[in-house]
């Protein structure tokens, strides 16, 4: 029972997904019968199958050498914040500022950080955004 074993965790995750989808299907939607199935039957069938796969994965993980789980919260966190920030700023202010935020925030995840370079990247991307808007006809809320 090793919580740092990738294969074992994977099995648990699959079982959890199956339980969530299957549980909702069983409790909230009509199942009907096979010949006239309701909206809940098919998701329930698929989640049961997924649950079985999850169980098999857990069983299998006992026979296979454990693979350590490695992850870093920092990078994925920074990227998610910059995406959400981009969307929020584009919504409430405008997309040009959104692009600047995206560049300055996301590059925190890189190996090196340089203000001058970020200004250059931002200018380049803003130019691309203008090209998209005026040449390809995308309606971007740039300003």
């Amino acid at each position, binding site marked *: 029972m090793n919580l740092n074993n990738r294969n074992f965790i*994977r099995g648990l995750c699959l079982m959890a997904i199956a339980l969530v989808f299957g549980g909702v299907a069983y409790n909230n939607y009509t199942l009907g019968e096979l010949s006239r199935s309701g909206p809940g039957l098919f998701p329930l069938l698929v989640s049961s199958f*997924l649950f079985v*796969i999850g169980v098999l994965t857990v069983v299998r993980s006992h026979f296979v*050498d454990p693979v350590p*789980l490695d992850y870093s919260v920092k990078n994925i966190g920074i990227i998610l914040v*910059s*995406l959400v920030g981009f*969307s929020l700023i584009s919504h409430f202010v405008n997309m040009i500022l959104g692009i600047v935020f995206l560049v300055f925030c996301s590059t925190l995840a890189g190996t090196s950080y340089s203000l001058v370079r970020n200004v250059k990247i931002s200018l380049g991307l803003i130019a691309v955004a203008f090209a998209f808007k005026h040449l390809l006809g995308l309606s971007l809320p740039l300003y």
Partner: protein
Amino acid sequence: MEVLHNLAFGFEHALTLQNLMYCALGCTVGTLIGLLPGLGPLSTISLLLPLTYSIPTGGALIMLAGIYYGAQYGDSVSAITMKIPHASSIVACIDGYQMTLKGKTGLALFTAGVSSFIGGTVAIVVLSTMAPALGEVGFLFGPADYCALMLLGFFCVSFVSSGSLLNGLAMAMVGVLLGMVGTDVNSGTARYTMDLPFLMDGIGLISIALGCFGIAEVVKNLDNKNVLTPFNGKIKLMPTWPEFKRIIPSALRGSVIGSVLGILPGGGPTIAQFAAYAADKKLSKYKHEIGTGCIEGVAGQAAADEAAARTSFIPLMAIGIPENAVMALMMAAFVVKGIQPGPNMIGTHPDLFWGLVASMWIGNCFLLVLNVPLVRYWLSVFKIPYTVLFPAILFFCCIGTYSINNSLDDIYTTAVFGFIGYLFLRLDMEAAPLLLGFILGPMLEENFRRAMLLSRGSFNVFVNRPISATLLGVIGVLVVWQTVVFIRKLIKSPDHHIHSDNQGESAKAPTPVAAAATSGSLASGE
């Protein structure tokens, strides 16, 4: 004769100035983006799909197809010059990179280009003769047969893309469940929408694709922190005549293997490359040199890659079922344009079908005359450091998601799937089967419900119909074979423990040679 007539009809449609432009643009942009680390054909297509929305149907499909094979060529270029493997170019890393080490980069790139051309040409002959015939077969399919075919597709894709049946199948099922989100077509019930209005139409395909392939890959590359050394060597493209002669037999062999494997469910470029490489190892005149950087090791797999990429359009256009994740994306693009791929497509939209077939060949010519000579300039993309590149990739992901519905809310969905995709990556779960499951899920449900309705709730319908019984039989054989392999390994190992999970790792094995050896023997054993 009819085929020639049809092809002429297709060329008539493809050879307009506009369509030629779209084709060239698709090939070029596809190659450029395909070159970037971590962006294979799947992410390239999903990134560029939104750009085609404003283009007329015929041009859009031609451009998308161009993007697809452009991306594949770009992939093999980065594999040959810098040993950056994508799922679609693992084999090119072996001999291609060895050739680079020997200073024969130009020859390797030329070989890959010419072999792709040969592979593509053979595949187009197969496509134009087989697709209409298979379309007739498509009419024989009932709901139960469709179900069985899709299930077989899941099994095969799981097996090919992640090497382990269990992992891939799990992802396909997760994809099917995600496909259930939205309004149920039969009863109008909103399922799994959490009362969020924008989920009523289901989750956007592009959000899933860009999240799992674009954003998750970017974060993975950032986690790795290894700095790429850009390729700085000289490139001398033109081969000598004896070298050129060595390309042909290997490329032809690869083309045939690729064309056949491209049609099968779950088939496509990946498996075709391994099979062609294995075949070259056994049959080639220069088999003793393969693995050390010889022409045959590059030519066969490149031809198979290209041929399979083309013929994998056959099941999509003839039966209406995409056989792998890339084709699933293509199908989404068709549907956006208001065309339902399937047995009726060739009849109702002959201009599109034959135009696409013809444009494939034109795309091949573009690859040959544009990309092969210009490749040294493309490679300068790598002189841009990743720190500059990844904000741009993120930006394109955002624009891609936004431009589908002009809705900033979709970016949140993409971010959520970026996170989920990252988790899956870290848990070693391949996202390609998920995408296929997501697209096939609603079709699977509809056909399953229809089959059950027609058979009054009896599962016998799956066994009584010859087509579905055969397909399910194949699934049974696959499952039994996998179980036997696992148990055998378990019994053979002294402490009843399996030490290296080499099947699951084969997709990203550090030593592609080992991966090729295992998968190659798998492919030839089939």
